[in-house]
Every structure is written in structure tokens, then in C-alpha cells.
């Protein structure tokens, strides 16, 4: 197991978990979202190829109402 920070909260994942695996836990099917890994954007096309490491900082964001 590894521990990362996801949207500011500590979260445990299996070794070799990919961004795609992470996203899979978040009910985001068919929704628009974006992923930042350690302050760098991870394009959707790479979600399956990018794997999480211990202490990674991941941000997953969506669009909400704002002015």
C-alpha cells in the first residue's frame, strides 16, 4: 500500500495504482474533470499510464457554479 494526498486528504492505494484507478474510485464516469499530479496536469490520455507513488499530491477538480 502507498499513501497519497488526494484533494488535500490522505488516502491509501495499492502499489501500482494508476491515475485511472484513482479516478475509478470517484464516481466520475461521464463527467468532466481534470487531474493534477504534483502540480502538473495529467492529460486524460495518460491516466492509464501514470502510476501513483508514495506521497504523491493529486488534485481532481470539476466545474461548479461560480461568478
Amino acid at each position, binding site marked *: 500500500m502507498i499513501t497519497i494526498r*488526494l*484533494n488535500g486528504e490522505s488516502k491509501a492505494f495499492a502499489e501500482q495504482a494508476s491515475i485511472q484507478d484513482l479516478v475509478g474510485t470517484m464516481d466520475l464516469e461521464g463527467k468532466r474533470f481534470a487531474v493534477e499530479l504534483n502540480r502538473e496536469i495529467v492529460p486524460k490520455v495518460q491516466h492509464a499510464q501514470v502510476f501513483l507513488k508514495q506521497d504523491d499530491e493529486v488534485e*481532481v477538480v470539476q466545474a461548479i457554479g461560480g461568478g
Partner: protein
Amino acid sequence: MQSESIISAPLVVAGKEYKSRLLVGTGKYQDLDETKRAIEASGAEIVTVAVRRTNIGQSSDEPNLLDVISPERYTILPNTAGCYTADDAVRTCRLARELLDGHDLVKLEVLGDQKTLYPNVVETLAAAKTLVADGFKVMVYTSDDPLIAKELEDIGCVAVMPLGAPIGSGLGIRNPHNIRLILENATVPILVDAGVGTASDATIAMELGCDGVLMNTAIAAAKDPVRMAYAMKLAVDSGREAYLAGRMPRKLYASASSPLDGLI
């Protein structure tokens, strides 16, 4: 009639034409249904959204803003609201671009403090430089400082959006004189962003010669948001038409509307 040709002149932002000169936000509504109806009533074609962390374990059946305000129908304008540094604003724009499949039109705002939400112009200049270099089309929220507005234009922002008054204050255009100074020097669209409280505020902004108005609270916080959205649509069109029509000169004294001769 030459005026008709003028009237049809659309708002052009980043090379794209828009019939509506009213831009609206999607915050502070009761629910997504009210959001949808208000935005439809406003006739807006450019709609701002915020970018926020997905709530972990958020119920997936919750409706999603972009399902209601679809990027196919509207030009989505992601903002950097809540960012207090250039760095955060740039990160937020990059997330937004990824979120919207490469859509690179953004509303940049870097704020100074939570009490006034006044723009931090120094950080705003820094962020604008980075974003323009990174290929973004930047519509930038700023103060009514005419020099900063010009510098943001020179940096390459596609639209400069000075405040009328603090965000959400509804105080109207506090300093029309500065807005006029900004307009005199501008070669990109100037939109008043923030401060509008009621319809006449929007009309006044357009009568000054602004190219458009962006608002959120004035609509969302009205007693009847959908109706106010419609009032704002009329207000922006009205102010634009009045600006193009050219108002009568003010006179200190009266001038009869009816002829003086031929009185019984």
C-alpha cells in the same frame, strides 16, 4: 440605414462573435434549475464557472453544472475566483483547460483579500504574462486603474474587465471617470465586471461605451433571479443602443418640446 449596420456589430472576443454583450456567472443560485432558467432568460452566450475539488465520495447522481450549461451551447468561461496568487491562478487555468478538452479562454482574477475581493494588480499582471505565454486567451478582471488596464492589454489579454464596485456589493459603477479613461485607450473589448446591482447600473456601463458587462450576484441575489436576468438582458441592449444613438446634450435650462408660435 447606417445605424442598422452598427447595431448588428457583434461583440468579438478572441476572434469569436457574440450577439449578446451580457456575460453571466453561475454562482449563488438556489439550484441548477434556477441557474438554467436565469441564464436562458439573460440571453448570455458566455457563462463563467468555477473550478473546484471533487468532493471525495460525492454522490454520483448529483446533477452536474456542465450538463445543464453545456459547452456545446455556451462558451464556458472558467474563472480563477478564490486565487490569491499568480501561481494558484495559473494552476487553476491549466486544470480548466484540461477539464474542457483544451478550451483556452479563461477569466483571470487574482484577489487581494477576502473582505474586499479587490484585485491584486501586481499578481494579476504576473499571471497574465504567464498565461498568455502559455497560449491562453485571457479575459482579465482588474481594478479601474487605467494604466494597469492598458498594461494588461499590452501583455496580450483578449479582454480587460475593470470592476464597477467590489464583487457582490451591488454598488454600481463607483468611478465612471476611470472607466471612461480606460475606454479611451483600449483596443480590446472592455467589459465591466463586478459591482452591478440593478438594471440601470448595466445600462450606465454600456452608455459609457463598454463592450459588455459581466455579472452574477445582481441576478442570483435578486428576489426573482429569472426576471432580473431578463431585465439585465434588456438593460445591456438598451445601454448599447443609447450609446450608439448618441444622447442629447445636457442643458442647465429648459427647452420647449412643443413649438412656441401658433399659441391661441
